[in-house]
């Protein structure tokens, strides 16, 4: 059992070193500010911690409505040039009472001010048609819950880390994809997945952990079903 104790001490050291790496890599003047939206208190607490531990600033709200209010997009409140903290990323749960994550996504992408903010959807249900819908509506990525530290780290890295140039390319490709009729994205290095009738449980772990160019979410984007 002494082995376990040593193991745990080593792990903590390792973890602290990793944390420092994260901090130093995001040593730009601007700390990434994430708006997290989830109606579940438990999930809010977890996502908040996941984001903080990867050196992000977090604002966590419990509904799409409140998210829009925070952004200054709520129709009922006059958006008097809301000058709050700039939001770099929105991560939202899909299933929420009132406004779903999908509806929130549409509202954001429909706003000239905020449409450039990347939106990531989280869901406990690994449903291809749902994922497709979100991606087609402009979601940056789709994470299957429960969310892990590796999901958030990966997300942060390819969106705000070294992958930043790549994300610009992705942006270009995404727009190109939307302009032309559905055709395989030049960045996807593997052949497109078969249409959505395939089992929704195929490789859920892959959905959870995209890499920048080989993102399986990009594969789903290229499916021609409609």
């Amino acid at each position: 059992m002494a082995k376990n104790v040593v193991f745990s001490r080593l792990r903590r050291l390792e973890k602290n070193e990793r944390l420092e790496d994260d901090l130093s890599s995001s040593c730009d003047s601007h700390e990434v500010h994430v708006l997290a939206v989830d109606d579940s208190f438990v999930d809010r607490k977890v996502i908040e911690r996941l984001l903080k531990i990867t050196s992000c600033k977090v604002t966590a709200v419990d509904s799409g409505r409140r998210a829009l209010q925070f952004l200054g997009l709520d129709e009922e409140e006059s958006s008097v040039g809301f000058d709050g903290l700039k939001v770099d990323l929105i991560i939202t749960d899909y299933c929420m009472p009132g406004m779903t994550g999908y509806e929130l996504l549409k509202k954001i992408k429909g706003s000239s001010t905020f449409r450039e903010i990347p939106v990531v959807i989280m869901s406990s249900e690994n449903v291809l048609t749902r994922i497709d819908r979100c991606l087609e509506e402009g979601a940056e990525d789709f994470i299957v819950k429960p969310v892990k530290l590796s999901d958030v780290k990966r997300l942060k890295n390819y969106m705000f880390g070294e992958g930043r140039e790549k994300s610009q390319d992705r942006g270009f490709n995404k727009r190109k994809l939307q302009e032309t009729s559905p055709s395989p994205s030049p960045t996807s290095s593997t052949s497109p997945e078969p249409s959505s009738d395939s089992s929704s449980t195929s490789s859920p772990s892959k959905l959870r952990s995209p890499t920048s160019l080989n993102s399986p979410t990009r594969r789903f984007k290229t499916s021609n079903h409609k």
Partner: protein
Amino acid sequence: MEIVGQLQKQYVDFINSLFREGYLDDQYVQLQKLQDDSNPEFVVEVVSIFFEDSEKLLNDLASSIQQQVVDFKKVDGYVHQFKGSSSSVGAQRVKNACVAFRNFCEEKNLDGCSRFLNLVKQEFYLVKNKLETLLRLEQQILQAGGTVPLIE
């Protein structure tokens, strides 16, 4: 130091049994990874929220099932929430019970829903008990001056 060693062994044996018996899954380990000196109470906080949330959900579930006319969509909504939160803390057996429960909601099977509400309740109180024991052990280790072993 012997006390610390004993407590740590107790802890490791206990948590391993929880994984083995399916009470907890990897997501619990994920939560532990998020705890550090800057946030030493993280797991306790999340678990406490889970306990509170769950009690409320169980009450809501009970009353929704006892209605004259049962709104199965509403029931399913509660179960979905419960499934989500239990999954987020790694309470595997609760989550699995919720998954099965939802099938009965879909089938509008009142008897099945009733039975599974009881099962979910049972599983919840079981894991609550186990987690309380686990967290108490952690406290004891820390108080004795030791560190809590991290299981992978």
